[in-house]
């Protein structure tokens, strides 16, 4: 009996982890709204991390994350199951971050120029800074189009294919941007070589 069950299981193998998202979404579409909470709990940390690292500012993380999940909530009914849920989720996250950066840029035009504390901190002597902070500030200095693919790879562990779908570009471009981001970091971190190595 036990053997038979195992065979059955082999014939219909358990669907991979990602399919858990799919089944949750299906249940949500069928009317089980509580499954959305599970999706939020499962992915909120990564979403918040992407936002934090992309914007380099933790004040706005909660607000933007809320906007991301609200967008997902409103559009989940039309999810087409053609790509992984995370790819779609991260694309929304990246786009929200881009919108926010655009708004910040526009605002900065109308605010008087002053040296921010962050910038001063970055140029201060390496002895006063801890390694993680130095690296974070260097990442924040990268241009957005290099920073986002690097973080999606190194922090979120997405594949090049998934990153390409999230940021809507070719895999070759992702490969090149990640390498250029690393080169940029290497150059920026040169003065701190002793502390870092």
């Amino acid at each position, binding site marked *: 009996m036990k053997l038979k069950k195992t065979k059955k299981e082999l014939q219909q193998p358990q669907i991979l982890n990602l399919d858990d998202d799919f089944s949750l979404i299906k249940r949500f579409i069928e009317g089980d709204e509580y499954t959305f909470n599970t999706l939020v709990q499962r992915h909120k940390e990564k979403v918040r991390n992407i936002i934090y690292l992309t914007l380099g500012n933790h004040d706005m993380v909660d607000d933007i994350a809320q906007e991301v999940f609200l967008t997902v909530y409103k559009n989940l009914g039309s999810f087409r199951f053609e790509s992984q849920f995370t790819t779609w989720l991260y694309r929304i996250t990246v786009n929200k971050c881009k919108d926010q950066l655009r708004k910040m840029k526009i605002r900065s035009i109308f605010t008087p120029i002053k040296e921010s504390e962050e910038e001063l901190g970055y140029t201060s002597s390496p002895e006063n800074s801890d390694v993680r902070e130095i690296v974070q500030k260097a990442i924040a200095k990268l241009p957005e189009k290099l920073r986002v693919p690097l973080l999606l790879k190194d922090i979120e562990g997405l594949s090049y294919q998934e990153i390409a779908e999230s940021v809507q570009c070719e895999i070759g471009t992702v490969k090149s941007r990640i390498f250029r981001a690393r*080169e940029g970091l290497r150059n920026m971190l040169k003065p701190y070589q002793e502390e870092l190595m």
Partner: protein
Amino acid sequence: MGNLYKPAYRTGRKYEMLSAYIDNELSDAEVKKLEEELKFSKELREKLAELKKIKELTTSSVKNIEENPFFETRLAAAMRIKKPWYSKLGKLSPVYGIIAVSLILMVVLKYNPQVINNLLDKQKSNITAFYKQNLKPLLYAADLTNEDIFNFAFYHQLPLDNRKQQFLQFGSDSNGNQFFEIKNAGAASSRDNLKKFIHDFNLNKDQERHVDSILSSYADDLQSQVLVNEKSTVAINPNIWNYNKALAADLISYLTRINKNELQRALPRQYEEYYNRRNVAQMVSEIKSSKNNNYIFFTPDSIFSEPYKFDKDQYKQEMKQWADELKDNMKDLNNQFKNFSVRIHFGDKYNKLKSDSSWAKDFKVFVDSNYCKVHIPSVIIPPIQLPNMENFSIRIDSLNNLFKEFSFNFPNPGKNKSFNYKYFYNDSSKGLKFNFKAFGFDSSFAFKNHKLDSLLAKKFKGRGFKLNPDSLAAFYKAFTGDTTEILQQKQLQEQMKQFQQEMENFRKEMEKWQKQFQKDLPKQAKKNPIEI
């Protein structure tokens, strides 16, 4: 920025592979190939270690951000809030604005379709009124002399200011379409044309006075044909083209009476009938009685044609009154005249305007750095039957001052069987240069300042040398009035010159090569005998 993130291309491609390698994003074949290379390259191994370290640093840089304990509660609350239907309408507010404006416009146009035309007309009349203000006759600005009026008759030029820095040039092209040009003084005709004319036609004092009186009588009429103001507006009455013909015809008619023989040398026979006294008198009265009040306004903003009535009598009265007031102080009056000047500044402004189609909507305009040419639609010039004066004016020209610089050059008599003839028309930019083939002239045969007709009649008689004044005159025609044609001729001449030079070089090269070939041929035969 670019240099910071972009290493050299070749090494960059290899390092890019290393970066993908540590991300496990290479195919099996690529991995195998790269690992082979890594075995033999210390540089690649070092780079790989460096990239791994960077990746490690990036990965470990993330610290957990403190989450707001109410994040999920707030999210759930936000999800529950259903925005009212009209909340979306706010985003569309610009669309509503456009729709509202369109509707208002539609309603206004439905009940008052002329509103836009009226607005445009009002705007137009505002502009035209601005430029029509304070228009004064050209006499006021340029203080025309009889010499100027004579130049107007035969050279189609009128000065725009006292210092004669800019000129109005009138003309008509081969299709009979009239044009006017505003030119800088460089292209103006030479001075003393009237004096030379009087001298060459052997006019006595009385006849000279008569010519002067003809010119003066036209001066009075001419003053209302070209109006100017301090806003650099030049208003031209199209009837001026007819005045130009009438004045020339009047003068020629007088000359026909007093010195027919001399005139016949200058006047083409087929035109003679036009210049009998009765015909000319009829033409002149027809032109003078023409009441065409449609002036062409040349302004810094636009060129347009508008009706304008210049009250000559009122103007005269005002001038008289003004002169009486300033009688005691003539200096002030003179200063008033001197300070008033019209100056059209060509260059960037007019060049920019040229690209704006509304600038000269009904006119064809050419703008250059020192002149502006405006073609007039022929319809607005009242048609008056008079022959084209171009040919005749050229003859007058040739009789009087064409041959300012007229010389023959025999550099090597006997050897070089040709000679050069140079002719400069008023200014150096309009020169002609002829090269004539051999005649076997005496080397001492040289002229300066001789007239072409006397040369033809006396010096070249029976020597097989012939210059046809008619064809020459037709050729000179290209050099009067129309600046673009002058430029084309000049370019053509330069190109021909270059081409001749190149052909000469090519011929010399060929000769050299031929000589060399003939010289080398026997030597080569000696060096390499054919073995059997």
